[in-house]
């Protein structure tokens, strides 16, 4: 006969066997969550099931706090756990350490693959990105008409630019039809050309929720869009293919509204500042010319007619003074020379000779000096000039050749 165990002993023993088993002490199990319950203690209780079986699971608070998501019924997950037996009711259960969504790894792999492919094709090229208009006349939004996202966008736009113009293309933003609905929205706006910028928006969500924004066909239609497009999907940390292919990525839908519409007051200020500069530039330009004019009007060049007359008349005064001096000098020297000449003339004068006893005979008929006896015929009158008077005589006879 074998030994008889108490129930407690049995459960305890079975528990130890399970704990000692190398496979069951750290096992990874894939299944669907059901009967999920979160206790106030923070512990999570649920079952993991597949088509035929199910197993009880518990995740204690310390481990559950590190899960990247809150499990929901129907969710397919992969857990890492150890098998144990709950002593009190002898129930087999898994104590869960880690939990991840099933297929998430596959999704990331697919995302990376598509990203590399489209990047290689040049769909993300910066050179292909279109500029967002500074002042969109009308903004197109492809998003869900329900929920906070569109309200946030409208709120931000109203604050920045009260008279904005928005056209909403309602679309599912998660689920199987979302990608094709969003794509239709982008294409509709491109066909109708009713807007000059498009925002594709969605609020935050799980990787699966945002998955439609990693759709290849949607990415290509965004690339083809001739209207600039802003992608505003999820939170700041979420990146989708749409973000890469769009002309501008906004971290959130509200941020997209900030980016797409300028602050009206800032624009008014900018216009005002430019107008102000314009006025100041003109006034400055006038002032500069005025100064130049004043400077020129004081310059000699402009005053020249009068100045020249003055200068010339001064020169004239100077010249005439010089002239007078030089004339006077000339007159003086001439007078002195004349005085000298007169003195020498006086010395040479015949009167002086006469006063020394000489006399001068002239023919009174002709007035010519008689210098030879041949000029005289006897009986003709001869006038003798002495120093103190004339003597009228008559020639008696001539004696040629006789001197005293």
């Amino acid at each position: 006969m074998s030994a008889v165990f108490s129930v407690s002993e049995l459960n305890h023993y079975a528990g130890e066997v399970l704990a000692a088993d190398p496979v069951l002490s750290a096992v990874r199990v894939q299944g669907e969550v059901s009967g999920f319950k979160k206790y106030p203690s923070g512990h999570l209780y649920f079952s993991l099931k597949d088509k035929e079986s199910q197993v009880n699971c518990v995740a204690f608070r310390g481990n559950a706090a590190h899960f990247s998501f809150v499990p929901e019924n129907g969710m397919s997950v992969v857990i890492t756990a150890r098998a144990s037996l709950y002593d009190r009711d002898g129930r087999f259960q898994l104590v869960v350490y880690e939990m991840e969504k099933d297929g998430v790894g596959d999704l990331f792999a697919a995302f990376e693959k598509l990203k590399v492919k489209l990047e290689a094709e040049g769909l993300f090229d910066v050179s292909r990105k279109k500029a967002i208009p500074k002042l969109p006349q009308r903004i197109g939004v492809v998003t869900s008409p329900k929920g906070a996202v569109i309200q946030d966008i409208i709120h931000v736009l109203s604050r920045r630019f009260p008279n904005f113009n928005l056209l909403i293309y309602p679309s599912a933003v998660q689920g199987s039809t979302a990608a094709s609905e969003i794509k239709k929205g982008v294409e509709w706006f491109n066909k109708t050309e009713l807007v000059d910028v498009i925002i594709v928006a969605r609020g935050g969500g799980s990787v699966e929720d945002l998955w439609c924004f990693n759709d290849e066909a949607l990415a290509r239609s965004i690339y083809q869009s001739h209207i600039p497009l802003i992608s505003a999907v999820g939170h700041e940390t979420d990146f989708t293919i749409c973000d890469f292919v769009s002309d501008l990525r906004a971290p959130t839908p509200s941020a997209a509204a900030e980016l797409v519409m300028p602050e009206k007051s800032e624009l008014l200020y900018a216009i005002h500042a430019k107008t102000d500069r314009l006025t100041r530039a003109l006034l400055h330009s006038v002032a500069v010319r005025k100064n130049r004019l004043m400077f020129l009007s004081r310059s000699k060049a402009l005053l020249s007619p009068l100045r020249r007359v003055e200068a010339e008349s001064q020169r004239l005064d100077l010249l005439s003074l010089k002239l007078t001096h030089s004339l006077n000098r000339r007159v003086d020297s001439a007078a002195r020379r004349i005085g000298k000449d007169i003195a020498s003339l006086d010395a040479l004068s015949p009167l002086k000779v006469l006063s020394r006893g000489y006399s001068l005979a002239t023919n009174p008929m002709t007035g010519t000096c008689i210098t030879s006896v041949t000029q005289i015929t006897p009986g003709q009158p001869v006038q003798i000039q002495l120093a103190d008077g004339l003597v009228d005589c008559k020639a008696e006879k001539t004696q040629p050749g006789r001197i005293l």
Partner: protein
Amino acid sequence: MTQSEEYEKLSFEEAMIELESVVSKLDSGEGTLDESISLFQKGVILSKLCSSRLEEIEKKVMILTDNGNDAKKEVAFGDDSTTPGEKE
């Protein structure tokens, strides 16, 4: 075509760029006084144009609804008829 008619075609963005270039030219102080005055007049026209462009946008929030045969119709957004059912 007069200067203002020519400017009438400019978008806000284009008018702002043109205004900036006019201001810069006037700032440089080059050219004759007549040229400066004509630049100033251009600038004033452009400045008014920029301001009026800001007011020209019509405040409107519309949503597209199916109108049969793939056609869409714009209706004002925010009416109960356009956001049926639950609000998330």
